[in-house]
Every structure is written in C-alpha cells, then in structure tokens.
C-alpha cells in the first residue's frame, strides 16, 4: 500500500480522491444514471487506484449496486437506461463508441449477491468464460481452470470432483466458484455486489481473506451492507445515500474520523 501524502486541506470535498497519489484505475466522473424516468445516481465522482479495494457502503436503495453495475454495463440489461457523465476504466471510457461491451465485460469480472453457478460441472463453470471466447484447446483450458480455482482458494476442496455438479457445493464454495469463474477470463477489475450477504460467517471469513489476497493483482470494488466487513477488507470506503456520494476517504479515516455528519450517523447506526 503506497504511502499517503498528507492532506492538502482540512475540508475534504466528496468525490476527490484523497487516498493516493496514484492515478485512479477506475474513475467515475460526474456520473448520473437513469432507469427510465427514475434517477438512480446523482453526479457521482470517485476514483479507485489500481490494486486497491474500495468498499461502497450505504443503506438499501442508495445506489451502490447501481454504480457497480454501471461499470461493467450490466445495468443495460434493463430497458430504457440513460447516463450522463463518464466512467473510465484503464484509461478508456466505457461508454465510448469504440468500446466493445463484450470485451469490457471480460476485463471486468463480477460476483453477485447470491452465488449463481451454472447448473453444470465445476470444471464447466470455470471453463465457461474461456469457451465463450474461443479458447478450446483442452490443455490450456485445464491449466486455466486449475489456476483460477487455486486463486479462488477452492482448488483443494474440489480438485477430486471437478466433473460433479456445481450445485452440490455449499454456499460459500459456490461463491468462491463464481469468483474463480470470473478470474478465469483474466479481468483487471473485480466488482463484488454484496458477495457475502447470503453466506454464513465462516464462509464469509474465507472470502474476505480471499479478497485481501486478490488485491495484489486486481482492482476491487465491493458493495457491502456490513460495515465491519468494509473496515476489514477495504483500503478506501465510499458512503452513498439516495444516489449521491456523501463521503469518500481512506477506510481508517471514514470509520474513525468521518468528515460528514451523515457518515457519522450511518456508521454509528443512528440512521440507515
């Protein structure tokens, strides 16, 4: 974790990135997002430096899931969506004309709230992304599957039953399988939408460990309801409320010395 430069001013404006000298790898610029006539995001600006974990916290319906779903444009599965502002990943705008959504989604992996493995074998689940994009060579696929399962801390538990159905795994194992599946296509960014909310504490702990270890290679955004989790795994935290970004700072600062009153109220449980 690179050293943080001292703050230039006392008052931190929401949206600026006081967290690092490094340029952000994922940058959200004045993003407003609309589902039909309903506005879900209001002028959000934040940046996520490479190989850091950003936790997005806030009460239900505050737009944190939406924000994350905009980044890989999976929100466009809904009809009638509209955006203002921009999102830049790895130097390229995701909304530009020459952006290929398919390629974008390869570069950005996503893990969902409820584990959603395909009703196929464990092997097939992880291999799915590779096959999708034309990698058929058996040897390569085998290698990548093993590598991905290792990376997702699942290999030891399933190496003898790769051909059995993924649905027979426990919830925590399924979620790690989904992580492996996402890792197999070699993304740079990982989006995680409340990945542990359907899991028991032990499984949750395993995944949190995993996230911390994955940070070295991936830029991670994690949406979470659980503030302790945010405090445990993330480097930076952003609080959202009703579609607006309230505060964005280093995790330590947010939880010990929040700048905004709303932040303080939320983390102490007085609201939200």
């Amino acid at each position, binding site marked *: 974790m690179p050293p943080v430069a001292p703050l230039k001013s006392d008052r931190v404006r929401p949206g600026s990135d006081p967290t690092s000298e490094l340029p952000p790898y994922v940058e959200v610029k004045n993003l407003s997002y609309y589902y039909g006539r309903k506005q879900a995001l209001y002028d959000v600006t934040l940046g996520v430096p490479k190989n850091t974990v950003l936790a997005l916290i806030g009460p239900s319906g505050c737009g944190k899931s939406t924000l994350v779903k905009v980044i890989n444009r999976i929100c466009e599965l809904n009809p009638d969506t509209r955006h203002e502002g921009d999102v830049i990943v790895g130097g390229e705008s995701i909304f530009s004309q020459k952006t290929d959504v*398919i390629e974008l989604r*390869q570069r950005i992996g996503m893990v969902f709230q409820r584990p959603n493995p395909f009703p196929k074998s464990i092997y097939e689940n992880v291999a799915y992304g590779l096959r999708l994009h034309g990698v058929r060579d058996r040897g390569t696929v085998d290698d990548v599957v093993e590598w991905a399962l290792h990376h997702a801390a699942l290999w030891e538990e399933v190496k003898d039953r790769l051909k059995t159905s993924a649905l027979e795994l426990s919830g925590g194992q399924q979620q790690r399988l989904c992580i492996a599946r996402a890792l197999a296509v070699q993304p740079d960014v990982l989006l995680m939408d409340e990945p542990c909310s359907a899991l028991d504490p032990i499984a949750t702990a395993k995944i949190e460990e995993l996230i911390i270890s994955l940070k070295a290679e991936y830029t991670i955004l994690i949406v979470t309801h659980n503030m302790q989790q945010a405090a445990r795994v993330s480097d930076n935290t952003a609080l959202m409320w009703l579609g607006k970004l309230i505060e964005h700072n280093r995790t330590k600062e947010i939880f010990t010395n929040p700048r905004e009153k709303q932040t303080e109220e939320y983390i102490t449980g007085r609201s939200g």
Partner: protein
Amino acid sequence: MNPAAIRARLRHPTSFLSLARERTIEGALMLCGAISIVAISLIFIFLFKEGLQALGSIHLGDLYQAKTVAQKYDAATETTIDLPPQYTFTWQPVSEKPKFSFVPLILGSIGVAGISAILSTLAGLGIGIYLSEIASERMRSIIKPAMELLVGIPTIVVGFFMLAVVAQPTFELFQSLGMAKVYNDTYNMFIGALGVSVVIIPVTASLVDDALRAIPMELRAGSLSLGATRWQTTWRVVLPAAVSGVLAAVILGFGRALGETMIVLMCAGNAPNITVNPFDAVRTMTATIAVEMGAAAQGGTHAQVLFLLGALLVTLSFVLNLIVETIAARFRKRIRL
C-alpha cells in the same frame, strides 16, 4: 499458465462478423415467430378465398334457405312452367338440384355443443369445486392427472367407444322404456353430446378449478369469520366472485365442443335434420366437412361451399376466443385485490 498469453487470446473486439451473426440470428428467430402469424392468416385467407368462390354459383341466401323450383307440365299451353319456388332448410349437396342451406348443420352443431356444454358445465363445476375446495393434496394429485389423461384420450377412441358400447344398449334401453316414438335413432344428438362431454369435462373442470383457486383466501376467511358454513361461503361468496372465470370456462368448453369432429362423426347420426328432439340424428358442420370433403376434393361448387363452411367454423371459433379472452382479462383484473 501465462496470464498475459491467455489475455491476448481472449481480448479481441467483437468482430463485424459476430455482430452480423447476432443480427442474423435475431432475424431468423423473428421469422420463426412470424410463422404463427403466417399460418393463421393463411388459414383464414385460404378458406375465405376458396369459399367465397362459391358465391359465384350460388346466392348468399341459398346458404340460409335452399330454393327449389319445381316444374310441371301444363297441358293447356304445352310448356313446362315453373311452380312458385319453395324455400326449405335443406342440406343436400349431392343431387340434381343441389341444396346448400347451412341451417340444419349449424343447428346440429349448436345442439350437440349445447347439450355437451350443459353437461360439462355441471360436471365441470362439480369437479372444479371439489378440486379447489374439498380435495386433499393427495386426492388432488390423483384427480388432476386423471383429468389430464381423460383429455388425452384420442377423440377417435371416445367416438368408437360410444359407437360400440353405448349407442346400441342405450337405444334398446329407451325402446324398452316405451319411448320408441321419441328415441328412434341409435346414433343421435344426445349420444354425440355425451361423447363430446367426455373430452370437454376435463377442460371445464380444470378451468373452473383455476378460476376458483385464483380467488384469494382472504375472501373466504372473511365470510367464514362471519359464521357462514363452508358451503355457504362457496356458493354465495366464492362462486359469485369467480363468475367471469367460470363463464370463460363454459364458453371455452362450448367452443371446443363446436369444433369436435370424430365423435360426432361416429355417433351423432348422419342426417342433416332440423329437430328439437335430442334423440334424433343430426349432422354437424364439422362432420359434414369430414364426410363430404373427399368426394368434393376436385373443386366445384360443392367443394367451395365446404370451404365456406370451414371459414364459418374458423370465424366462430375466433369470435368465441375473443369473447373468452375479454372475459378472462376482466376476471384477472377483478381478482387483483
């Protein structure tokens, strides 16, 4: 395993070809979807096109009342003169002076379908109420598949059964009861309707069951808490609420009975009479087409009139369908608490 190498193999922009492929696939699927539209339109268009050609040789009124003009030889003037025309409701397409009145056929269809609609409404209501109000889960899991099996019996089997097992003994039964004057055809409207009911009852029962189960429990609970018995609740509260659904079921059953062919062909008799006696033989529209199509396949007025008959049948089923849809839609709207 070299991540960079893998990445290189994966990172390719979606080529123009694969975009084109997606578009083509979507187009092909749209065509498949449109095939239904094409099929139903073709059916309508074709039937009407062929059928309306009949109006080149006969008048529309002939389909209502066949006009026969007999002639007699007048010795005085030594010519044959036309007697005043007689109008009859006769279907006699194969004769020197073909008569194409649809009336006996329509009445035959309505007669058979009507009787079977009544029978199947009563039975269907009974079974539907049983299934939704009384039956335990176990009984339900037996009776409901039993209904599906009943509907799955090929109509030819039901027709054969009525013909071989039911018609003759019933005839003799009525004869021995001294009703020979009334019941003088072995194969008649009643037997036909009985057979048709066998396949319509499961349909009506299933629809009534669905309609009753759609009524929310709160309604029943409210009535029971006022002290009404279960039957009072069913009779006075649930059924009236489900009236549109039940009505839709009845009309649907009637519509399907109208379209039934094999059963009536085999056991409703084969005579295009007009009668109010349900124990007389009749001829339905469907049976007429079935029986006479072969002979008339070569074209000619008879064939064209049969196509017109088919067009009439299709229009009838379309209209009934529309009515059922409207009622069902209104029902669905009403039960949204």
